[in-house]
């Protein structure tokens, strides 16, 4: 076998993903998504300061189907990153490293993010 063709760890396409792996990459993905969301947040501030016309253009864009999907996505990303961020802080304090604990907290975070997102939109509307 050619040394260059040897399979490299961590075999992302071969192993069944453990839930901790999913929760880890979701933390990064939601973080990047919110870096983009930060730009929208700034545009919201800038358009509000510019006046009613600029604000109306933004409100129209975010009121469209795509805009609504993005807003729901960003709110979920926020709640996921926040919940998993707390999980990271608990790890930093030295707790929750056992396999069962890490698996359980991964599911807890995923569930919490969905529940918080639903609660948020119920309160908004």
């Amino acid at each position, binding site marked *: 076998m050619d040394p260059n063709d040897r399979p490299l760890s961590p075999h992302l396409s071969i192993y069944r993903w453990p839930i901790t792996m999913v929760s880890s990459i979701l933390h*990064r993905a939601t*973080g*990047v998504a*919110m*870096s983009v969301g*930060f*730009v929208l*947040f*700034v545009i*919201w*501030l*800038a358009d*509000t*300061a510019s*006046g*009613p016309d600029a*604000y*109306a253009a933004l*409100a129209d864009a975010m009121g469209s189907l795509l805009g609504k999907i993005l807003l729901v996505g960003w*709110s979920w990303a*926020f709640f996921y990153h*926040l919940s998993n*961020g*707390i999980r*990271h*802080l608990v790890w*930093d304090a030295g707790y929750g490293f056992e396999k069962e604990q890490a698996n359980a907290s991964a599911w807890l975070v995923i569930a919490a993010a969905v529940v918080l997102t639903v609660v*948020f939109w119920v*309160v*908004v509307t």
Partner: protein
Amino acid sequence: MSLRSPLGRVLGLGTAKDGTSHWWGQRLSGIGLLILGLWFVVSIATLPGFSHNEAVAFISKPFHAVLLMLLSVTMAYHSWLGVQVVIEDYVHSHGLRIASLILSRFAHIFFAAVALFAILKLGIGA
């Protein structure tokens, strides 16, 4: 007795003495965003409406303006640190990596400046 090689000493190799500052900055800004972010989403969720007037009224309250400025700066800082790690992990070409790191840093500072200006404009009522 030092275990460092003479060559390493001459070249000034060794720890840069700030190995934990990036990690610590990410945690501190994360804790800040935990508070500021929750305040923001609760405020947005309980806003009476999303018209231009209501947005202006919300942002221009002095206490809200201060918290929004803190939120903007902390978010820009936290996002800058996070995006930096993502670029370092995934952009392998040296030149492109340096260029992306510089661009990301400038962009984060730019958007933070826009946010601060907009909040101050509304808060001071210019």
